[in-house]
């Protein structure tokens, strides 16, 4: 790729071609607010908050869709730009119900960020909000269209990334809103609840139902790990607060899934904290299971295994490993059967 150099806010920047002005600016520590742009859904040009001025070009240009060219001179914070950005944030604030106090999106909300950076507390435009009922029909996702900023990211995610093709934009003008199928409640639509839309939503319009009130984003630790379901091996973050997983999000910067998950990976985590989890070793005594200490359980098991090995030979013992647990655990299991029991009678359900 060809090297180019351009000037942003008086700063000479060297980069390579085929990048957007937005990305070049961000790579060089220049803040440009965005709402509809997301690296995974690419340029959108809808919210218009990322506008910049370019010498020689009329009007304002949206930096998310403007290709950086050699010799370009870009300004990102002129009076006109700031005035436009402020107007956009105020338009959102007066057309939607953006109340951060108990919003699940608070802390990760990109509208909140933009308002903060522009120093906007409230809109000076008249209040145009409509009271749209909150869609709670989906078992996993809460849709509060009062907080929707029509950025199209959920639609792009649903149609271009996950290709489930459930969402689209219905109606027009200020009545324009995201619809599921033929304007059905999400829970009655053909939505397969992959949650791609939730992950891409810049505000609190789409949130995880199970995570509600469980913890603010800044209160959680995020641990990157591998999904425990199918063989795709999606990379994801477990959001943890007080030793509890409260949310799962896809890891956007790594193979193989680049942020996508399915219903199981994204929402099937709470079995971890099920009250039905086994908490103590159990021994069957007179047909009933009784809680015992690890010492007792292990002593009993080891003794019994040694006894059977002695009386019936190692071949009378078989082990079934687990396609669900780690390589390390499986290796240790295989080693145990071969080195300790002395048999190759070890298998797992590779076939189911």
């Amino acid at each position: 790729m060809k090297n180019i150099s351009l000037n942003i806010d008086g700063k000479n920047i060297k980069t390579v071609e085929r990048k957007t002005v937005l990305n070049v600016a961000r790579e060089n520590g220049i803040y440009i607010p965005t709402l509809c742009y997301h690296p995974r859904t690419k340029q959108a040009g809808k919210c218009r908050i990322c506008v910049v001025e370019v010498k020689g070009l009329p009007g304002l240009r949206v930096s998310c869709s403007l290709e950086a060219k050699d010799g370009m001179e870009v300004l990102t914070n002129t009076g006109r730009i700031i005035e436009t950005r402020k107007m956009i944030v105020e338009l959102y604030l007066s057309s939607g119900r953006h109340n951060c106090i108990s919003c699940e999106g608070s802390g990760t909300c990109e509208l909140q960020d933009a308002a903060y950076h522009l120093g906007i507390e409230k809109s000076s435009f008249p209040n145009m909000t409509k009271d749209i009922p909150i869609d709670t029909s989906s078992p996993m996702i809460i849709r509060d269209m009062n907080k929707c900023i029509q950025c199209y990211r959920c639609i792009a995610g649903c149609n271009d990334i996950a290709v489930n093709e459930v969402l689209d934009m219905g109606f027009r003008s200020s009545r324009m809103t995201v619809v599921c199928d033929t304007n059905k409640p999400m829970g009655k639509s053909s939505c397969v609840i992959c949650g791609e839309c939730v992950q891409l939503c810049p505000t609190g319009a789409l949130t995880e139902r199970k995570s509600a009130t469980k913890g603010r984003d800044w209160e959680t630790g995020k641990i990157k790990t591998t999904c425990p379901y199918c063989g795709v091996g999606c990379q994801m973050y477990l959001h943890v607060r007080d030793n509890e997983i409260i949310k799962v999000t896809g890891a956007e910067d790594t193979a193989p899934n680049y942020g996508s998950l399915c219903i199981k990976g994204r929402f099937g985590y709470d079995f971890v904290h099920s009250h039905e989890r086994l908490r103590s070793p159990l021994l069957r005594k007179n047909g009933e299971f009784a809680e015992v200490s690890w010492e007792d359980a292990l002593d009993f098991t080891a003794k019994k295994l040694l006894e059977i090995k002695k009386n019936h030979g190692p071949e009378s013992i078989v082990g079934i490993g687990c396609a669900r647990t780690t390589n390390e655990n499986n290796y240790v299991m295989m080693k145990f059967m071969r080195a300790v029991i002395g048999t190759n009678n070890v298998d797992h359900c590779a076939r189911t």
Partner: protein
Amino acid sequence: MDDKIKKLIIKLAHRFPRKESALLPALSLIQKRNGCITEDDLMEIANIMNIPQARVFSAASFYTMLSLKKIGKYHIQVCTNVVCSLLDGESLIDYVSGKLGIQEGEVTPDGLFSIASVECLGSCGHAPAILINMAHYENMDLKKIDKIIDSLKKGEWRG
């Protein structure tokens, strides 16, 4: 959706370089025949053209000539934009509303009439204008509209 319309839509779908181009013609066809587009129609069209239902809804809810709600057999649309209203077009809508006893967006109890105000009909040179279903009427006045509505009531209509 009856089989006849379905066949027509399938035929439409083959007319264009890509099937989905028949979406608007298909929706307009149903609108014209049935006076509104039902949810079943939307799903059926999505099925025929193999496009997402949401996309069909997106289009059906975007265009003003398509209606997702039942409208009257005669849908009277009065232009209320600049030129027509400067030439007293707005009194037309009040008059029709009074005559039929319904407000904008309502349907008469017999299902015969509904009224809507619309943006420019492209008749600025012959303002004021109204559109009844697909028929244009230009240079309107109260007398003319009276006559039209009366003839519609009597079932003598050319459109």
